[in-house]
């Protein structure tokens, strides 16, 4: 709970600091980081806590984004109502995928979720009358109106994103200490033990899948209006699914701040690589990918653990504690 409060305070500081920044590129980077962090945090609720690596979280980004925008542009459904419908659609999809992948674990679960994401992409490409196919759909800006999630300043999206990230973080923190959070921890330890303790495994798994999808979707419906473009390659692409998993792991799935730190790390590489190498792309994914390799091979608990060690190494008594902990 203390770490949750610390994170929210930090996000509030970021929000306040954003008023000092006028550069729209920096604000844009901060906004992207915030939404990536929302998705990483939501992903962690499912995969970090349950131990099953999902490689299909972009379906919960594409589904609500398309539903909201298509309803708005084609049927003139108010954006907020459409967003709720979009989130509901993502939850329904999660219930279906969750139920279908119940018995799968490890590589099977990863492959099944990855393929769910690929199915979504191919359906979007196929039904181009509705979805715009590979060209996507641009979202025309009409007027600044918060009920349509249309703001005339990037900072507004950043602030909404930070608020949402706070909510998601508080939710995840509360979830870990909740009844359901306990059950998930037992299931992660051993399904046989969970069954022997009377836990309804199927129900718990489907419910956390739906929760994770709902939080992911909430971020997606806001983000798509910031993006002003339904881009199938980005929103429904396999790359986004995989990146979410990877930067959350780089940050550290065992920590509340892990996915946020991971998202910031990933965006930072992107910014540095853009500034340093300009048009030669690939640096960001290369560093991200190989960081995961390094982290898996050396420090499976991510950047958060490294940061903690640095902090602890500051004082001798603290060092004693960390040594003791390692010894155990």
């Amino acid at each position: 709970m203390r770490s949750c409060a610390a994170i929210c305070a930090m996000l509030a500081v970021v929000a306040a600091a954003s008023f000092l920044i006028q550069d729209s590129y920096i604000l844009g980077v901060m906004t992207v980081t915030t939404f990536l962090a929302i998705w990483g945090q939501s992903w962690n609720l499912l995969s970090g806590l349950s131990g099953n690596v999902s490689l299909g979280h972009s379906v919960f980004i594409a589904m609500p984004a398309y539903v909201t925008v298509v309803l708005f542009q084609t049927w003139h459904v108010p954006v907020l109502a459409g967003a709720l419908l979009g989130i509901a659609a993502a939850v329904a999809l999660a219930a279906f995928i969750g139920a279908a992948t119940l018995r799968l674990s490890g590589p099977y679960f990863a492959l099944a979720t990855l393929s769910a994401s690929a199915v979504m992409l191919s359906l979007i490409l196929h039904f181009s009358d509705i979805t715009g196919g590979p060209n996507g759909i641009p979202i025309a800006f009409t007027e600044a109106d918060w009920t349509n999630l249309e703001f005339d300043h990037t900072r507004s999206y950043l602030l909404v994103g930070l608020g949402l990230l706070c909510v998601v973080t508080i939710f995840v923190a509360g979830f870990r200490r909740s009844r359901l959070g306990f059950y998930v921890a037992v299931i992660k330890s051993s399904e046989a033990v969970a069954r022997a303790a009377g836990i309804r495994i199927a129900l718990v798994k489907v419910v956390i899948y739906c929760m994770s999808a709902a939080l992911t979707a909430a971020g997606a419906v806001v983000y798509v209006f910031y993006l002003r473009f339904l881009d199938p390659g980005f929103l429904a692409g396999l790359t986004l699914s995989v990146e979410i998993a990877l930067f959350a792991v780089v940050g550290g799935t065992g920590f509340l701040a892990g996915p946020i730190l991971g998202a910031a790390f990933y965006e930072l590489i992107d910014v540095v690589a853009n500034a340093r190498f300009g048009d030669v792309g690939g640096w960001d994914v290369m560093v991200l990918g190989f960081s995961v390799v390094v982290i898996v091979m050396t420090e499976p608990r991510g950047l958060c653990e490294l940061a903690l060690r640095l902090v602890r190494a500051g004082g001798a008594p603290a060092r004693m504690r960390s040594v003791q902990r390692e010894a155990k």
Partner: protein
Amino acid sequence: MPEPLLALRGVCKSFGAVRSLVDVDLVIAPSSVVGLIGPNGAGKSTLINILTGVYQPDSGSVIFGGKDLVGVSTAQRARLGLVRTFQRPSPIVDLSAIEGVMVGGLVRGLSRTDARAEAQAHLARLGLRAEAERSPRTLPTGRLKLLDFARVLMLRPKLVLLDELMSGLSGGELEIVLDTIDALAAEGIVFLVVEHLMEVIQRLSRSLVVMDAGSVIAHGPPEQVVRDRRVVEAYLGSDALATPC
């Protein structure tokens, strides 16, 4: 005679060509501590897996508290009061010691506060009060096994299957567990104890079930059963009694 808590009739289970359980009949009264022993491969593990619903019997019936258990899931059985511990310690590594125990109460529908209070009581009884807030990663095997026992007790069980709970416990821990079992048995909880440690079985059990080659070959008071000719043969071979002991 009161209605039995657990009744197995004609239970068979084969895996391919291997017949693990052959026509097992077993009746357990609603108040007792029953020991279950037998040589390796006698079918004890299969029996536990049948009772907890990991396997379905090929034929025969399992009646628990008057209810036929066919098609009842392991989790449902646990909520009905038929619970087990595992041979290997099964800590919940992401939760603290007391939280792992609370789970049993949460499943029963207790609030977190009530579950915590009840878990405290169980931990105190098992001598784990000091370890309540620690991570199970930092606890030795004996303590972990006691935590497993406490979690199972939180489910308010009617029948507890203890699968080698007591091997790996220190002397002091063993005494605590034995006393706890005695006390709970007096409150009406039934224990089916699978254990290698004969003196433990003899001290606890009011009756002893012996299995060999997938069948129950003896069931009765311990001191009588260990002198049963078939039991001695099962353990020591057919001509062991030819020599004086």
